[in-house]
């Protein structure tokens, strides 16, 4: 059971890290709008639709 004396402090460190990451995320506005950013994938310039080409005949 002595492994717990190492693992428990490790979990503490991880919790602190996770908390820090979350605080950063909140502060950076990541949680301000949970709906619109899903649309960011469409934000790039739309590729122009390829010009209508006649289907290539089977070779």
């Amino acid at each position, binding site marked *: 059971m002595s492994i717990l004396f190492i693992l428990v402090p490790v979990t503490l460190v991880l919790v602190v890290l996770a908390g820090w990451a979350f605080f950063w995320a909140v502060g950076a506005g990541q949680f301000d709008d*949970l709906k619109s950013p899903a649309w960011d994938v*469409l934000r790039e310039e739309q590729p122009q639709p390829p010009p209508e080409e006649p289907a290539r005949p089977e070779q």
Partner: protein
Amino acid sequence: MSARTVDPLLLPHRSAETAPESANQGCFHCGEPLLGSRLVAQIDGRSEPVCCQGCLAVAELIAGAGLSDYYRFRERVAERPTLTEQQDAWSAYSLPDVAAQFVRSSGECDSATFAIDGLRCSACSWLVDQSLARLDGVREASTNASTGRAHVSWDRDRLDLGAVLRAIARLGYRPHPLGDDNLVQAQQRERRNALKRLLVSGFGMMQVMMFAIAIYAAQIAGERMQPELLALFRGVSLLVATPVMFYAGAPIFRSAWASVRAGGVGMDVPVSAALLLAYSASVWNTFSDSGGEIYFDSVTMFIFFLTLARFVQMSLRHRTTEVSDALARQLPACAHRVVDGEIVDAPTSDLRPSDVILVRPGEVIPADGELLQGDASVNEALLTGESLPVRRRAGEQLTAGSVNIDAPIYMRVSATAAASGLRRIAAMLQRAQAHKPALARAADAAAARFLRYVLLGAGLTAAIWLAVDPTRAFEATLAVLVVACPCAFAIAMPAALSASAAHLARKGVLIVQPDALESLAGVDRVVFDKTGTLTRGEVSVQRCIPLAELDEAQCMRIAAALERASEHPLARAFASLSSGEIADDVHTFAGAGVEGVVAGRRYRIGSPRFVAELRGAASAEAELAATVVALGDEQRELARFELRDTLRESAPGVASALRERGVVSEILSGDSSEAVAAIASRCGVTRQFARRDPTEKLSHVQALQAEGRRVAMIGDGVNDAPVLAAADVSIAMARGAGLAHASADMVLVGENLAVLPEAIDVARRTLRVARQNMIWAAVYNFGSLPLAALGFIPPWVAALGMSLSSIAVVLNATRLLPRRTVNGGVAP
């Protein structure tokens, strides 16, 4: 509760096969009935029917910019864009004086925040972002769909505020620049802080619980834990619980301290007492060798639940728009002042009494004043609720906030914007809000009484145990405080309320004030405003009286052909009759009517005097009400049309559905008595009151309340705002004025009145579930209190019991959520 978000990729794409069918579905852009319109928009090579020129322009603009993905992914149809608003109104915002009120400058960059009306889903915000990003000079544009706000920054040399506003308006939305975004920032700060607290308490609870379970497991199994390990677990629990206690729990202690200083006992007082006691005892026991219990698990769990409840409440509160913000949107930011015969644009706030200003057609009158010359047709719907334009003659008063309909008018300002009628209504609203009967206040008082007994009981327990067996005094007292802590009590109402709020949101009813449902369940009188509530607030042809040989249908056809080209609000009444015939050589005469050639003959439609002039006869009769329109050719008058507001489809059934639930309906309107009587008879409402101004409406509702009635008020205009605030429950229509929203408890998003009886059902069911929850919580609290006082319950069992009772309450509340059917739909 946010509307259900749908994965856009799962939505069926509009395929070419379905396009022909859409002809009988409604407008491709706004979804409203096509009403015979033959207009067609070209979207990605397909022809889609649209209902009006406005929709056509917006749809083609969107498609032309390659943004037609908006139509595939949107969750709701768009609002119908209004073209009556003069497009060039935005150029005034380019003036440095006007822009300075809204724009913040840094370096070469200008930025501003906008509130955007008509933003309905994430697809809308994507569309706005995209269009702005394509504007030359825009550096950054971000639109938040949930708050309806956009933040845009641009290069000062290449773009100005007016151009940005115009770009948003072109898409069919109504942008309002916000001068002061302190409120937005304050709310954002509050939300971020609350989120951090929620996380700290949640993480902390999980960590501490992990160690607590290990300790309890050893106790239950009767094993002795390795003393070093026990010490480690306790030490780590202390480390984790401390930030939870003093960071996440800080607001609880602050509010408890505030209520103690105010001389009261709030819900937070015994909570704080229990938390402080449990925490300090645990700290003591961690460091002393006495082997006493630690209660960090109870402490963190407790704080987590309380923080969660606070977070939910805060989110609901943030939905309400701030009154002054909504009010600021009603008046234009810029006015055209006439100085020495020249027209100079100036900020509205600079207007002084006796200034002469020009108001162009379609613009909002910026200040109260006197009409200087000619006649004016103005729409005072914002103030009186009357949807039809009224005539004003030279020398008569014009009120700020009304819209100038057809001709440019000159007026002399009599009061500054700050002192205008609109502001007076806002002041009245604030007074009415102060008198709002709050059921929550009564509940708080009851809880406070209960809490006094709890504190008293805890004190007694401590005193008696100290006399009998001092070693067990602390444990028993703590158990009493934890057990009696009305946690289940505290979340009984919020849990039930938020579950049914989620339910109602899917039906199109948005709960703005958390305690609205509670009040709605007890309602026995529903008061409807007429215009914009029972009716659509749009005119249609009520009656056509043929005066010559042409029959009704022929007259209607000619009228529709002539009015097609007009963007006058009254002209829309004829849009539904359009046969696709188009008049040639059409001229619009501001303030009078339209002249044009249909099938080779010249006709005029408009005011009787204007029509009479075509045949060279001066009409002797006085100007009739603005709701009468004449049609004539070069020889004679052909017909008269009477225009009326149209009834909503859902209106007639509401009164009887409400009656089945024991609720009496009333109509309370500012409109004329005939108009009200007509609507009342069609809706089956017997109690009707016409010609009531906002003050009379307010006193009417207050009189009903004095009789002991619980009144729900449904309205849409700014004029309704004070009444809405005074009613026990107020419901605003989604398209109504922003100020009405601000004072409403609920908003009917779908504008479907039929959901109202349903909402009452849900509210009553909610109250039933909440009552069950309260009884359960009371049984638990009162039942366990004596046991805890007698020392039968150790604090950890008390904490567990408290959590279980809370979970039971939450599970009971989930019964209020709409049931899902197998295919993912929602059962009725």
